[in-house]
């Protein structure tokens, strides 16, 4: 052992949090599941590559379907997903999960009502996003999400935060230091000087529209850009912001 000084304490534990998409199963047919997953992965543009996944079988169990946990886990791994945990499982399912190397969370059962079994039960992929949203921790997404669109007609002042479960429309200015967030699209019929975050639950197809781009920060589905990096020729003009290939695209409106 050389005399090089090594710290006496080799490590420490620190609390951290990880954003993990939850895969809600409404079927036990592995073939259908595989088909649906391949579709979603293709749409996801790399989002799901090597992504950790939490398997949620609440719905499947409510429909009294026998879930082949081992088969499911192999399938997910085959598709380059990393299943890390199981939620809502029966004792047998939990043991199977443990045997596959998953760990079990003592997750609170979700408050979603199980949907009536349709003829071809779909695999619902729901991406959970961490606490950008401080207010509503338990956002519910039913099979047919009912968007609660919000319209704000007064200026959004510095320090104020607005959150919409659907689209958000502001027919006034958004001051510097204000934050507007939406699970859907954002439209600002005025100057946008604060932060605008669209698609906060992971919907990367969302867009931001404004009449006068001076935003401090723009974000779609977690991909963000600061004012410093927004091209000068796009600022102080009407603009449309969308997401392509994990990058924000700012176009003239």
């Amino acid at each position, binding site marked *: 052992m050389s005399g090089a000084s090594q710290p006496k304490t080799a490590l420490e534990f620190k609390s951290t949090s990880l954003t993990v998409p939850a895969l809600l199963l409404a079927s036990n047919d592995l073939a259908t599941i595989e088909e649906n997953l391949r579709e979603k992965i293709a749409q996801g543009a790399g989002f799901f590559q090597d992504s950790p996944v939490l398997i949620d079988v609440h719905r499947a169990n409510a429909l009294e379907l026998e879930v082949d946990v081992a088969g499911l886990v192999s399938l997910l791994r085959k598709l380059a997903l990393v299943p890390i945990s199981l939620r809502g499982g029966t004792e047998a399912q939990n043991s199977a999960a443990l045997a596959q190397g998953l760990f079990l969370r003592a997750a609170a059962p979700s408050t979603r009502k199980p949907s009536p079994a349709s003829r071809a039960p779909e695999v619902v992929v729901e991406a959970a996003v961490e606490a950008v949203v401080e207010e509503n921790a338990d956002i519910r997404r039913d099979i047919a999400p009912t968007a609660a669109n919000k319209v704000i007609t007064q*200026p*959004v*002042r*510095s*320090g104020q935060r607005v959150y919409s479960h659907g689209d958000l429309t502001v027919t006034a*200015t958004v*001051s*510097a*230091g204000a934050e507007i967030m939406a699970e859907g699209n954002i439209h600002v019929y005025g100057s946008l000087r604060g932060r605008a975050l669209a698609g906060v639950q992971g919907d990367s197809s969302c867009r931001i529209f404004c009449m006068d781009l001076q935003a401090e920060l723009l974000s779609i589905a977690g991909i963000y850009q600061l004012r410093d990096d927004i091209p000068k020729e796009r600022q102080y003009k009407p603009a449309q912001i969308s997401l392509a290939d994990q990058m924000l695209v700012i176009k003239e409106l």
Partner: protein
Amino acid sequence: MARIIVVTSGKGGVGKTTSSAAISMGLALRGHKTAIIDFDVGLRNLDLIMGCERRVVYDLVNVINGEATLNQALIKDKRCENLFILPASQTRDKDALSIEGVGKILEDLAKDYEYIVCDSPAGIERGATLAMYFADDAFVVTNPEVSSVRDSDRMLGILSSKSRRAENGEEPIKEYLLLTRYNPERVELGEMLSVEDVQEILSLQLLGIVPESKSILTASNSGMPVILDEESDAGQAYSDIVARYLGEDKPQRFIKKEKKGLLQKLFGGKS
């Protein structure tokens, strides 16, 4: 029923106390019974600006704690019999204030007074939030300067969400812009934000512009609200402001640099 006015800003040192003193004196001189309350517990200076610092026996906190009655604490102004001052405590801090206590005082004052002016401390903490909680009107004092504008914007957000009117879903507080320390020369040179620049961000009803003036310092040193200095530009600005608030139609002055007449150019301009 009294009209409760809060003079607030967010940013410190922009002219809240100067404005509160001048405006409440202006209202009182026009025959309206007016009370002015200092909410800056621990850092009181309204009594200095009003010139009654040697007559303070009881203060706002004493009244809240029941150690004195409102009448014992209120100080009558020597220059105008319609004006009464309720000073803040210097020895305690803002934790001594409570919503119920403040509410009770305002309720009692509202019986006899027409206008109650609440001089808010700087910041967005308890003193400031209590000063604005019960307000009907808000005079947002702003300097034509970036940090003051942003802080005023923040304060407007708080006014629209944390006031009693906001919480009860009543008609919102009526907000006015009071632009102080305005220097038209520097605005013309492009060194200072103009009224239009400020309004682009704040979009408020402009109550008035008070020019940067040496008379302000002179007035505070002598414990006299500057509106009593009728020769000074600042004093006149506050006079206009009171008139405008009471509904008179006064054109905005002090926006443009004053053109010096020939005589003034020869013999020097006024301060």
